[in-house]
Every structure is written in C-alpha cells, then in structure tokens.
C-alpha cells in the first residue's frame, strides 16, 4: 500500500524527488523553497524520514479470516431461513401483517451483515460511559440475556477503566478543575445556548475572539469556526466547488469529506491512499482531457486529503502534494481533524510537522473535538476565502453557531498550547504526547503486532483480522479494565479488522505499561502477533531512552 520509494525527508532535502521522475521539474523549486523555510524558521531540525508501514499478514491468516466470515455467513443464512419460516422469533424490524403484500419497506438482505454478524458481537460497541472521558473513566456495566438483541444495566459501575479509545490527544478532557475557571465565568455570563445562526443574531464577540486566535495559532490570515466538525466539511465543500469542477479525493477519506464532495455536485475521482503517482496521473489526465464529454477545461481542481487518517494512522505526504499542486495549479484542502494539536513540534498540525508554510495549503480545515476537548470545526486560509465562506456557507446561514462555553474552552486550550497563559504546560503536553506515541508504537512493534501507519501518529491501529478475535480482544481488554475501540467491516476493508488505540498526553508511563502488558498477554492468548519483523525484546534499551527523554 505505501509507496516504498516515496517521501524521505532527511536533513532538510527531499531525497525522493530524484526517484519520482514525475516530480523532478517542480521538485527542484519546491525543494529549495522547503529547505529555505525550514532554515528560516530556526526550528531544531527534525529527522523526518517518513516511515509508514502497512505490513501484509501471512497467507494463512487471510485464509482463516475469509473462512470465518464464510462460516458466519452460512449461519446467517440458516438463521434468516429460520426467522423467515417462523421457527424462530425475529427481533429485527419487520412489517406489519396487513402490509405484507406491499412493496417491502425493510431491505432484508442489505441488513444481512448487521443482523447476523454484527449483532453477535454488538456488546463491544456503544458502551455507556458515565464520567468525563479522561485517561481513566467509569463505565456502566451491562449484560444481555438474548445474545445482544437487548441489553440491561446491572446497576454496577466499572470504575477507573483506562481509556485507550477517546480522542483525547492532549489530555485536555477532564472534569471541572481550576484551569477551567474562565469557562465557568463565560457560562455564567453568556449561558449555554446561542439560539440563532451566524447570519442572524448568533455571532458573539467570543466567536470573533476565537477566530482571531485560531488564525494566529495556525499562522494564516483568517479563520471561521462552526458548531460541528462533521458539518464543517459537509456544508463547506459544496460552497467551494460545484458542477464543472473536479475533486480528487483520497480513497480513505472520512465520510464527512465524501458527503461534502457528493453534495457539491462536482465530479469526484479517487486516488490510491497516499499514493503520489496515482494522484499525479489523475491530475495529468484531468488537465489533458478536460471534462468528460465536452473536453472543456475543468473550472477548478480541488485535492481533498486528511492530515492523519484515523483508521490507518498514516500521515499525508504534504510536501509532495504541495509540489504537485503548484505544478498543476490545483487547490488543496487538508482536513486536520486528528492532526491539529497532536503532530508538529508545537502542535500546529501537519504543515508544521513537515516544515511547510501554511499559506501553501489553500484551505486548512480542522476540528476542535479531538485535541482541544470541545466541539466544532474551523476553516482557515486567506482572508478572501474566509470572507467568501462567511457569506455563502450553509452552516453559517442555517446552523446554530457555537455555544459560548465551548468557544471559551477552545480559547483556553489554544492559549495553553501556544503558551499565551504564561506557562509551558501546553508545549509539555505536546512533547509528552510525542514521547508516549513513540514509546507505545515501539513497544508494540517489538512485541510482534502488525501496526499500521506513521511512527509519529498518535492513532495506533493493531491488526486483528479475524472477526472472532476482534470480539475476544475487546472483551478480554474490558475484563482487564482497559477500554479499546475495535473496528470491523464497514469502516475498514473486510479482511482487515483492527483495534485502534488513541494515545493521550495524559497517559502516564505506568498506564501505558499496564496496557502494553495486557495487550501482550491477550496477544499471546489470541495469537495475533503476526508480524514477521519481530525484534527481540531488550528491556534495558527502554530505560535508556526514557532516561534521555526525561532529561
């Protein structure tokens, strides 16, 4: 999946430009530009060899995975047959007796997977949480008497479960503490609801303050904030492109991006995940052949990518995409939902991670849900762009604007990260996250699990492959009081079910060690250590590195 020759940035030069023959002409100019930028910023040089691995599993694993799904499907057919003929009671939705002759309301076969495979292991999802989702949280215990069709709460609460599933990258999610005093004051002064849209009476001075702060944080001209992250993507992409434009989107983009692209009415073409050759081929074809029937030039070409892809843990190859975009004169839209606040030496996102001027990316989009412990999204870029979005965005016209306490929480979090509150706590959190990520990934890799994604990404997918193992993994982890998110078919390819760990700056070394120990044990029990590049475990080395980093 990953392009092995691509994207090694070391010592401030783009090595791969020479191997990717297409990039050569544009590459040289950008190469110099990037080198100058990295030197001008005066930041300590980061050795950025883009190491992304998407190791393939051994063949027998894939065979067993498909076999497992096959058996599940056979039993699914059997159960459907029994339900259809009334031998067994049907718990899913059915039509009423009087309407049996009408056009069917429920497409039975489409829900086949949900009804027969997902239902059996449904207890691993939608678990109710009853405290703030910080590094530890409490969960309500629930049991099912009829094999997960219905649940009931036993009344007990499972306390102090280690949270490895929440997107709490900087650890800013917690119950009320003294640092949230300003949020309380804003709540006392402004209340909770805004009761209006941005265009009518919903623009508060808090929003203006927040937007100025976001623009300053990202080092761009202007920004606009919205109340919901998903709606930021789906409501604003249709504003930027329309019919007669071309959208080139990565094949693994998030649903919000895909929905926005489809709503816009533009032509959508997907390129292989993080694959620059595929993107370049599409760009060349678009420019050479133009629109499908009329052969006219495309009005606009927009490239949609994400900063960190949450299911793979891979980071976008931003330098190459910026080089391509400049060469072929396309526009770039980066969705930094997971990467803002969590990558980069000071947490400014993927453009800082690669040392690229944020002005090179046309539209910077991000959410406040992940690293800032709030809700909402933003779009940032040049002032003309943001002014246009302010007037034309569907979210601005129809959706209620962001609630004031939430805006204050974001302001507080951003000031913390930028250091404007006078402490270095924000920077420490960003560095702690980087340390935790590196340690966790290194240990998991050494144990022999197959991990996807970039070494610097705080989202760690551990591949489990078989549906039975996915369910067993989640249940065993909960028994050990660790909550993980496991993901299966519709969100990931059929054969690649995984468990996704989200590292947080609030996780201490002891918590991570506990989780690693539990994962080790369960990995041995379930035999999921499929990696063929296993290194031998050298405990002394870990202590050495932790010594260096702690000083």
């Amino acid at each position, binding site marked *: 999946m990953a392009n092995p020759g691509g994207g090694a940035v070391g010592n401030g030069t783009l090595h791969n430009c020479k191997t990717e023959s297409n990039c050569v002409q544009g590459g040289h100019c950008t190469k110099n530009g990037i080198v100058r930028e990295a030197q001008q910023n005066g930041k300590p040089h980061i050795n950025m060899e883009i190491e992304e691995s998407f190791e393939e599993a051994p063949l027998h694993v894939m065979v*067993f995975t498909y*076999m*497992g*799904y096959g*058996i*599940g499907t056979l*039993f699914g057919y*059997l159960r459907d047959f029994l339900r259809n003929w009334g031998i067994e009671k049907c718990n899913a939705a059915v039509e009423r007796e009087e309407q049996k002759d009408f056009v069917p309301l429920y497409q039975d076969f489409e829900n086949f997977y949900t009804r027969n495979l997902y239902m*059996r*292991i449904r207890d691993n999802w939608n678990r109710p949480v009853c405290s703030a989702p910080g590094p530890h949280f409490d969960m309500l215990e629930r049991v099912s008497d009829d*094999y997960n069709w219905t649940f009931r709460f036993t009344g007990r609460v499972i306390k102090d479960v280690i949270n490895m599933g929440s997107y709490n990258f900087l650890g800013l999610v917690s119950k009320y503490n003294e640092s949230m005093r300003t949020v309380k004051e804003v709540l006392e002064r402004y209340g909770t609801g805004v009761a209006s849209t941005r265009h009518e009476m919903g623009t508060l001075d808090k929003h203006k303050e927040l937007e100025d702060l976001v623009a300053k944080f990202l080092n761009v001209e202007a920004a606009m904030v919205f109340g919901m992250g998903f709606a930021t993507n789906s409501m604003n992409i249709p504003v930027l492109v329309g019919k007669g434009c071309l959208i080139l989107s990565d094949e693994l983009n998030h649903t919000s991006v895909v929905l926005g692209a489809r709503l816009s009415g533009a032509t959508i073409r997907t390129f292989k995940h993080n694959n620059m050759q595929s993107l370049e081929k599409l760009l060349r074809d678009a420019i050479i052949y133009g629109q499908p029937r009329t052969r006219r030039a495309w009005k606009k070409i927009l490239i949609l990518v994400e900063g960190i892809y949450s299911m793979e843990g891979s980071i976008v190859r931003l330098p190459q995409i910026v080089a391509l975009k400049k060469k072929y004169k396309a526009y770039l839209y980066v969705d930094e939902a997971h990467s803002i606040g969590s990558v980069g030496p000071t947490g400014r996102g993927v453009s800082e991670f690669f040392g690229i001027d944020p002005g090179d990316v046309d539209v910077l989009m991000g959410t406040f849900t992940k690293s800032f412990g709030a809700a909402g999204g933003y779009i940032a870029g040049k002032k003309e762009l943001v002014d246009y979005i302010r007037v034309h965005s569907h979210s601005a016209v129809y959706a209620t604007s962001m609630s004031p306490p939430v805006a204050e929480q974001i302001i507080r979090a951003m000031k913390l990260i930028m250091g404007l509150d006078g402490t270095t706590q924000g920077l420490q959190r960003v560095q702690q996250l980087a340390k935790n990520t590196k340690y966790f990934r290194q240990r998991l890799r050494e144990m022999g699990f197959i991990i996807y994604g970039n070494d610097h990404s705080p989202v760690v997918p551990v591949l489990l492959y*078989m*549906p*039975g*193992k996915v*369910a*067993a993994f989640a249940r065993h982890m909960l028994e050990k009081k660790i909550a993980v998110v496991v993901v299966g078919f519709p969100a990931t390819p059929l054969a690649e079910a995984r468990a996704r760990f989200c590292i947080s700056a609030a996780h201490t070394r002891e918590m991570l060690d506990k989780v690693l120990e539990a994962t080790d044990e369960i990995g041995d*029990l*379930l*035999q999921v250590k499929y990696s063929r590049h296993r290194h031998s475990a050298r405990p002394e080395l870990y202590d050495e590195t932790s010594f260096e980093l702690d000083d």
Partner: protein
Amino acid sequence: MDFRRVKDYFSWLYYQYQIISCCAVLEPWERSMFNTILLTIFAMVVYTAYVFIPIHIRLAWEFFSKICGYHSTISN
C-alpha cells in the same frame, strides 16, 4: 502434573479453533451443530482413508512395477 499441562494445551487449542472459526460468537446450539457436522465430516474422511488408501496404494504399486518390469524386459 504433566496431565494438567496437556489438558491446558488442549483447551487452549480448542479456544483457538473456536475464535478462528467464529464458534466463539455463535450461540450454544449453533456451536454444537457446527461441531457435530465438522466431526461427522472428519470421521467420514478418516473412514474413507482407512478403507481405501491401502488398496489404492497397492494397486498403484502393482501398476508402476508392471511398467518398470515391462521396461526392463524390453531393454533386455
């Protein structure tokens, strides 16, 4: 003590079989049905092998030895 280790090993092996073949997520009656069918098929395979394989090997051996014998008589 050794018996206990063997028993533990077999129960671990059974657990592996269960999670790989999705038996772990099936209901008990489905599980017993699947195990019964699998054991039946396995038993039939073993029986067929026991009854037929020696005869087939003997016939194959006679066939090939006849050919080699023919060959050697020709060359003589």
